[in-house]
């Protein structure tokens, strides 16, 4: 196994350990060991980052050229968001949730070897704007992924409180109010990052309309509108609580499905990378 792939998988296993440690603590009705979990997440993040870096060097750009790389990148984004925002929320369980989601994504990416069979080098043709668009888009997917996970926590906490079940096992979960606040912030931040990513793509689309897949365009715009509507409804307090949590979870699943369909259509169309075009791609404002 190549070192980059191996490192990414080791990172996923370390995330799994962090998640398992938390689950074991909860099963024993003990508070999760926050520092140990955070330490494991950091170690896994370092290992996964190294793996992604090696892959990036070998493919000559941000490693998001096949399904394996995309899932790994989203997994990495989830942890990135947690590492930089987890301390703000002061929610111990968030580390375990992030680790669980990251591990699930990363291990899924490795489940089908064919997903990593084809690697595209120089995917962005040296165009930093396209690469930034792609990286930000997948970062926003990572944030939406974390949002889906915290929404799942909300549903669990809400179900437990409503049905009066498992009061002692779930007492270490964040409160309903905390989870609502976290979800709103993640939604707002994810949407902002997604908007910037699409803004870059929009400018690129005006200049090179043929370089964008219709499937990708439609699904991405739909997702952007959907998250926008959800954010507005939440701000107006028309959508909140259990319904908001379900919508967040379903939208992320939709995002993953569309990602997979976009990947599939990209293989079918076998497009030329921007570098293969006659003239170098230049975006307004780019020196």
């Amino acid at each position: 196994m190549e070192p980059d792939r191996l490192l990414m998988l080791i990172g996923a296993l370390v995330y799994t350990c962090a998640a398992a440690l938390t689950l074991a603590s909860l099963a024993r009705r003990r508070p999760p060991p926050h520092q140990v979990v955070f330490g494991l997440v950091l170690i896994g993040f370092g290992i996964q980052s190294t793996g992604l870096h090696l892959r990036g060097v070998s493919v000559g750009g941000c490693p998001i050229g096949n399904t394996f790389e995309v899932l790994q990148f989203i997994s990495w984004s989830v942890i990135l968001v947690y590492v930089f925002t987890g301390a703000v929320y002061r929610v111990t369980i968030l580390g375990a949730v992030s680790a669980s989601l990251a591990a699930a994504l990363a291990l899924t990416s490795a489940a089908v070897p064919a997903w990593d069979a084809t690697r595209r080098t120089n995917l962005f043709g040296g165009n930093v704007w396209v690469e930034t668009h792609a990286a930000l888009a997948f970062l926003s997917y990572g944030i939406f992924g974390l949002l889906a996970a915290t929404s799942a926590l909300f549903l669990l906490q809400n179900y437990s409180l409503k049905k009066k079940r498992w009061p002692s096992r779930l007492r270490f979960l964040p409160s309903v109010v905390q989870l609502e606040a976290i979800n709103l912030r993640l939604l707002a931040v994810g949407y902002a990052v997604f908007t910037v990513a699409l803004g870059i793509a929009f400018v690129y689309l005006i200049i090179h309309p043929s370089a964008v897949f219709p499937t990708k365009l439609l699904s991405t715009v739909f997702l952007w509108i959907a998250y926008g509507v959800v954010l507005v409804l939440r701000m107006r307090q028309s959508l909140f609580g259990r319904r908001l949590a379900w919508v967040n979870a379903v939208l992320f699943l939709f995002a993953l499905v569309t990602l997979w369909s976009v990947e599939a259509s990209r293989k079918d169309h076998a497009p030329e990378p921007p570098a293969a075009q006659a003239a170098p791609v230049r975006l307004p404002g780019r020196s």
Partner: protein
Amino acid sequence: MPETPPAIVLVGVNHASASLAVREALSLSAGQLEDLYNRLARTEGVTGAVVLGTCNRIEIYAAVTAHADTAMAQLESLLSVVTTYPVEPLREVSYGAAGLDALRHLYRVAAGLDSQMVGETEILGQVKTAYRQAEERKLLNKPLHRLFQKTFQAAKWARTHTGISDGQVSIGNVAVELAQRIFGDLDPAKTLVIGSGEVGRDVAKAFASRGIRAMAIAGRTAERARILADETGGRIVPFEEWPRTLPHWDIVICATSAQHVLIGKDAVAAAVRRRPARPLFLIDLAVPRDIEAGAGDLPNVYLYNFADLARIANENLHRRQTAVEACRHALDERAVSLWHTIGPGREPPPPASADRRPLPGSIGG
């Protein structure tokens, strides 16, 4: 001939050995505690001492060079003199232990196993305070220092690795824990108490003790409502006005003796519509119920009645009781292990006389 290291002895009374009246008579004021420490420092054969005084117990742990029974009698006399409680009645309700038995007992006390509310955590802080007080008075010699440090470690271990402190076992604390699962920080949560029955008072006090700043009491009996408001630092809301203020509150505790429903589902729905994204926690302690059961089906509304809270409290209590035996066994092993390190090669301490009252809960056995 090498000097014999001091033995550890214990003398005390607690909720299991003495009535509340006796414990009140033996409770030490700050001046009496100072007096007791001064007398302990002057007592021949006592090389160190720690006095643990709580509302449920007074215990003296001492490092002594005298025979255990003699030392225990000395300690009882000192306690009698300081509290002016006659020594003979004191001996009838006091217990004593020496060496490993005293060590085991201290481990169990610090871990909360010997508390009236098994698994409570306040006792460890009280033991630490007693340790500091002895240290300040330079009555903490090396064996006692080591003994207490190991005790703190053992108590912390017990809390972390066993289920003795799992869950709340009083109705009030269960309600508070549920509120924390809904709101997290309870400081800003606005709480309305309707009625001032006994159970409602306990629950209201539990919330007040957790730092709820905005609490209001609405009671048909103005005097009882005023007393509860004084006890909880809350304000009075005229009973006829509370329905109008319902959307304002995050937590509503109902404990009236009304024979009909006070808060219908429609009223709750109307209140929630005015604060849709903010949860509403309804606690119905009344029998018959004050709140229509269907209100709990509304989004963002969490309704618990007395039976729900009692069931959770009982489950927690059962789990704690199951964990207690395992914890006691583990702590005993740790005590024996420590005893081997602080008293190796020594003769086992002389057992307390047969006529001495055993430690409560036959711990000394």
